[in-house]
């Protein structure tokens, strides 16, 4: 009886494994392309909104900025291929910026104008710190920075329009590069030199999943937490527009979707995401100002712990089950 059972299990096991091996092409269609389509559409709307009304306090413009930024955060874990070519991801989202390169460069443009901000073609050559969503956040939500223009509202307006148009252009280029190139590389994994096997394509997706969660834990949450003696609320992501907590939730939703695809709907892993998201929803602290108080800090730490539990499951269970482990990522190093 026992022998029979083992024989049966052996016979069944390979088929079950094959059915559970995720298909990179399906993940491209269900997870990656929809994300980039939404980003390109929202970024185009942002560009139109800035053209229609560039007043930094315009509700329409701020809403369009928020919608496009949301769409970016939902693909922000996909740091490979088109997002790394031509520095596109950095041009959309250079953060953190501990040396203040972004606001310093923007202040220079607001004070002096210059050839760099004469038109979009020239602007695309400037420091990535002065481009993208974090630059636009400063222009919309940081009156101290806008003061560098010394009341020249036309200069502020022109810069807002430039940054928005650049975001739209980079987002459109990202989508094109996926649709016309990288999608086929992932679908045809095994037949090209970028992905020499399906496992290599899966390793790339697995690396994106684990790196995205590492970034949320160590940077989105870790930077404002600082240390117990020295919390750093001003280091929270996009705190001026009160988006810090929102980004944690959006990134968890996006990585949860990718994890579902990679894990064939593993219920335990999905439950770990649900627990982390629930803790986010109980945290009424949009910009992590609470890290400065012991009670507030404990609750942000609880979110971080929940994210780390997801990471442990992914590294310790999902990876070995798929027979892959994450490759190197940009967070390796300091």
């Amino acid at each position, binding site marked *: 009886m026992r022998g029979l059972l083992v024989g049966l299990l052996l016979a069944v096991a390979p088929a079950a494994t094959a059915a559970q091996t995720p298909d990179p092409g399906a993940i491209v269609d269900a997870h990656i392309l929809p994300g980039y389509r939404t980003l390109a559409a929202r970024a185009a709307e942002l560009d139109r909104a800035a053209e229609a009304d560039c007043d930094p306090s315009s509700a329409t413009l701020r809403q369009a900025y928020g919608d496009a930024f949301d769409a970016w955060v939902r693909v922000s874990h996909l740091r490979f291929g088109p997002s790394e070519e031509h520095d596109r991801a950095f041009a959309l989202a250079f953060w953190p910026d501990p*040396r203040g*390169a972004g606001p310093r460069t923007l202040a220079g443009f607001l004070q002096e104008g210059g050839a760099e901000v004469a038109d979009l073609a020239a602007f695309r050559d400037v420091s990535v710190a002065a481009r993208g969503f974090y630059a636009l956040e400063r222009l919309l939500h940081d009156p101290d920075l806008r003061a560098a223009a010394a009341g020249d509202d036309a200069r502020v307006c022109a810069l807002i329009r430039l940054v928005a148009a650049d975001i739209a252009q980079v987002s459109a280029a990202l989508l094109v590069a996926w649709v016309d190139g990288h999608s086929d590389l992932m679908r045809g994994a095994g037949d090209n030199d970028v992905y020499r096997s399906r496992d290599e394509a899966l390793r790339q997706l697995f690396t994106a999943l684990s790196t995205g969660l590492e970034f949320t834990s160590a940077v989105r949450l870790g930077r404002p937490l600082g240390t117990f003696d020295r919390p750093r609320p001003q280091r929270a992501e996009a705190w001026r527009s009160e988006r810090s907590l929102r980004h944690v939730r959006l990134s968890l939703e996006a990585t949860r979707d990718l994890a579902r695809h990679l894990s064939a709907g593993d219920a335990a892993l999905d439950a770990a995401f649900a627990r982390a998201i629930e803790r986010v929803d109980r945290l009424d602290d949009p910009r992590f100002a609470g890290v400065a108080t012991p009670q507030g800090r404990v609750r942000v730490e609880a979110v971080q712990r929940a994210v780390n539990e997801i990471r442990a499951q992914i590294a310790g269970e999902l990876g070995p089950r798929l027979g892959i482990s994450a490759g190197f990522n940009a967070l390796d190093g300091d």
Partner: protein
Amino acid sequence: MTRLTLAAGALALAAAPAALAAPPDRSAVVETYADIAAAKYADSLASAERLQAAVDALISAPSAQALEAAKDAWVAARVPYQQSEVYRFGNAIVDDWEGKVNAWPLDEGLIDYVAPAHGFAEGENDLAQLNVVATPAFTLSGQEVDAAEITAALLQDVLHEADGVEANVATGYHAIEFLLWGQDLNGHGPGAGTRPWTDYAQGPDCTGGNCDRRAEYLRAATDLLVSDLAWMTAQWAEDGAARAAVTEDPSSGLLAMLTGMGSLSYGEQAGERMRLGLMLNDPEEEHDCFSDNTHNSHYYDGLGVRNVYLGRYVGIDGRVVSGPSLSDLVAAADPALDAELQGDLAATMAALGDIKTAAEAGFAYDMMLERGNAEGEALIMGGVTALIEQTRGIERAAEVLGLQALEVEGSDSLDDPEAVFQ
């Protein structure tokens, strides 16, 4: 005789196309790795002692020549140390320690006088303008600090990473570099920092103020560098803990080797140190920004990665340390992959060599970083692209050696993501 052997080899290949070279013992490969580490840190220590002697000479008899001699000694000391950086990632003992000797980037205003700074990094570092050379007493995180005497303890226990800020770099090569060269205020123009030797002149010739305290700082930082390197050299000696960590379990030793190669190539060198500076067009994003020695820093980092793969290091006295290598192991499993990765590593050295050649001919690294400088961008991106390419090969080598299947301890990997090839 040689011809005969070759012919026999060709015959053997023809007869058995599937036959592969026997792989070396994995424990012999990690022994080579540990031997090369021991040699690199011993060379780093010896050249830091020469720097220490040059600094002593500068302080006891300040002159333009003495300052130049100390700078030369610093540049020479970087050659073996940069080749050791590949040991940083993957070896917890090195990673926990390296911030003391090679932390970067730094807010140098913590240490000494600097040009007036630009703002906008609010909430980041309250001590960015402390200038401890000019400040014998100050408040740090609510505590009064007595800095009347500048000692090794003050540097490493109080100032280094003060207030939990990594940019507060009070010790190591880059602190010493700043004290020897001063700030490079040339922006994207040619030229390094131009600190006058009189910053160390005692008495009425002193420039920059507090020359006695500046000399005290330089001496303390150099002495610390020497003692820190002596400690690390001991970790790789026959009974050293770092050696034991990689040799006791050869598979985890191999994993450390590949982790170091990949993490340095990709996240650190291609990303943090090269591409970022280019994207920001910021000369302060240069790795050795005071001395304009960045081209060498990058070159010897790249060489260190190749040393690990080929199992061969040429020391500062010309001696060669070599033995069974990762390359031998990979070749035994997949000769085509080994040939490809060797080619990738050689291509990286050629690309980093192009940067070094141009820089030594006068096209300094900070000039290459300037916005719109197409030639500089092409040189730097050539290095970045080659480093990214070799990272793919390193990942494939790990897979061929069956190392990705190693069990990853969840919490360890999360506390120290660099420590494992997770």
